[in-house]
């Protein structure tokens, strides 16, 4: 296999991995955009989504699409519940309290799930045919294409919601200044609740798709993708929707290239080096505008 061939195959690998990061990063970035919370529990919401999808497929005997929708709906409720119970009482507390609570929620979800579903990984039944396309020696998988297209569709829908609808306008207003928005008649609590609803539904979609694509789920599956999605969100500019998608895909490609041409040992180091570099050089991310912090 020559160099160009290998490079193209690694780009394919990278984009497919990156589209998963992107899907998780979308929810991360939305929640940050509204309440400035790094929701560390997001990766675990993604895990719960995967398990709900798994239950719908194995116990409910549903095909993949209804299972995906059920998982998105139930996980959306979970997201709202978490917000109501854990984050809402801290609305006016210092931001660090919120952050620590998010870590607490993360552990709570991980180990409560572990108690109920046992730590043994589960394998998804084959819910869709896994077709590999061989295009002139490059191997692309049908499921990779599916994940990438779902990511792009969901990003488009989200952008529409945020830019064109009344809810989106309220979200942008609340994101700009929660209290003033409230004075103007925006029900901030409702907007924040909806943000968690949508963000968690996206995470659930990612969880189910990952379960189908990689074939296993376990209660701690959300930790690493959660961190990587955080890097992706920061890279793209946290709070910016297209930024999350581009950040996710760039991160996936960088990981694939590092693993393919340097050494697979450096792969995660490279991912987190990106985080450090972005924070040092352009903290607002690829798509962010540099603004001075208001004091």
């Amino acid at each position: 296999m020559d160099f160009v061939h290998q490079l193209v195959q690694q780009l394919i690998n990278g984009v497919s991995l990156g589209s998963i990061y992107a899907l998780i990063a979308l929810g991360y970035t939305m929640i940050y955009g509204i309440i400035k919370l790094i929701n560390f529990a997001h990766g675990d919401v993604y895990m719960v989504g995967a398990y709900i999808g798994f239950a719908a497929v194995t116990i409910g005997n549903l095909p993949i699409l209804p299972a995906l929708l059920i998982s998105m709906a139930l996980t959306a409720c979970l997201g709202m519940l978490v917000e109501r119970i854990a984050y809402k009482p801290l609305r006016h507390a210092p931001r660090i309290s919120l952050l620590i609570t998010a870590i607490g929620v993360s552990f709570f979800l991980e180990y409560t799930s572990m108690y109920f579903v046992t730590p043994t990984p589960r394998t998804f039944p084959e819910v869709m045919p896994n077709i590999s396309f061989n295009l002139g020696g490059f191997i692309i998988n049908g499921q990779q294409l599916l994940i990438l297209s779902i990511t792009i569709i969901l990003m488009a829908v989200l952008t529409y919601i945020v830019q064109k609808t009344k809810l989106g306008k309220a979200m942008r207003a609340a994101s700009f200044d929660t209290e003033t928005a409230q004075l103007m008649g925006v029900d901030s609590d409702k907007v924040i609740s909806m943000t968690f609803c949508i963000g968690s539904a996206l995470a659930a979609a990612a969880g189910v798709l990952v379960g189908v694509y990689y074939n296993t789920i376990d209660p701690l599956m959300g930790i690493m993708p959660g961190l990587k999605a955080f890097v992706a969100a920061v890279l793209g500019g946290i709070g910016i929707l297209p930024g999350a998608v581009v950040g996710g895909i760039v991160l996936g490609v960088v990981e694939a290239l590092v693993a393919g041409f340097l050494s697979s040992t450096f792969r995660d180091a490279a991912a987190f080096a990106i985080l450090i570099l972005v924070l040092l050089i352009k903290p607002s991310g690829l798509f962010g505008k540099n603004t001075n912090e208001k004091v």
Partner: protein
Amino acid sequence: MFFSKKKFKLASMIACGILASALFTGCGGEQGSSGGEKKAAGDEIVIGSNFELTGNVAQYGANANNGLKLAIKEINDAGGVNGKKIKIVEADAKSEAAEAVNAATKLISDEKVVAIIGPAVTANVIAESQVATDNMVPVIGPAATNPDVTVENGQVKPYIFRACFIDPQQSEVMAQFAAKDLNAKTAVLYLDSSSDYSKSLGKIFKEKFEADGGKVVMEEAFLAKDQDFKAALTKIQTANADVIFVPAYYEEVGKIVKQARELGITAAILGTDGWDDSKVIDIAGKDALNNTYFCTHYFEGDAEVQNFINAYKGEYKTDPNVFAALGYDAGKMLVNAIERGGEDGQKIRDNIETIKDLQVGTGKITMDAATHNPIKGIVVIETKDGVRSLRTKIAPEG
């Protein structure tokens, strides 16, 4: 600071224990020996289970714990040992070395256990061996395959045992298998860089394989819990080696094999006892596992392991994996040591050391007193169309 405090606490507890026992022995006659007098709670013998029930290796710990519980349940259902029931007190090693020590300390000082089974993972067994040795409580690590578990500075640790073979044996068997049976000339190592188990197996495989005339042409690494291996596998594909050696655990192995075959890698993939779980077939898919081989502790088709497999299925409604089998074996070994008159740590230790031709779940074992490793065979298993078959069986040495 942390440790010294803990040690101090432990020491003071033991001191109190000795004082108390001195008071009681004053009028009660002879009972209990120096250091660790055990709660002779009438008709119960208390043993400790110290497995990783939570944390990132909980799946191994929980399975081993199930195996242990089954072994103890069997003996209790059969009337117990010499009229006494065996009671398991469970502690959670939480997949961390420091927590494994805490759990062992708690079992020894609060629960007064006579022996401890677990934890599952090498590092955690090594961590607890000091506190167990200090208190003269024997430990059996069911699945701790690293040589350092039972040996320190060339000396065998008197109270630490295992119920499995050791890593160098696995790597030797697989390196030889690759060179002789598969006629492989080149190999790629694909290791889990977050696990000592994987790294030490890879190192010894390389030595042995190159000694047999082969060459390791590439070494790549991944991390436990990774989902996507395609980037490294695309690179491995360029090496075009005869075999790929992946000494890792089944969850990652399943995904690696699946993704390797998706990319069109057809080379033989070899592994070790971490592969031994029927879930590998679910994860990787039947076709992907063709031309893969791994070595492990027992073959599920062997006549002598059927009793265990059926009992386990009856109890837990699922197939046992290798951790469950070794947890069960460790339980059987301990029961045997207690049956032969061991009711305190010292006696049990002596009896474990002299286990001979004991029928456990995975076969017959004899304890090697010089190394505290059981003398056991190794099997190499081939998977074809989702069905496992015995490829070769290497008889125990000596």
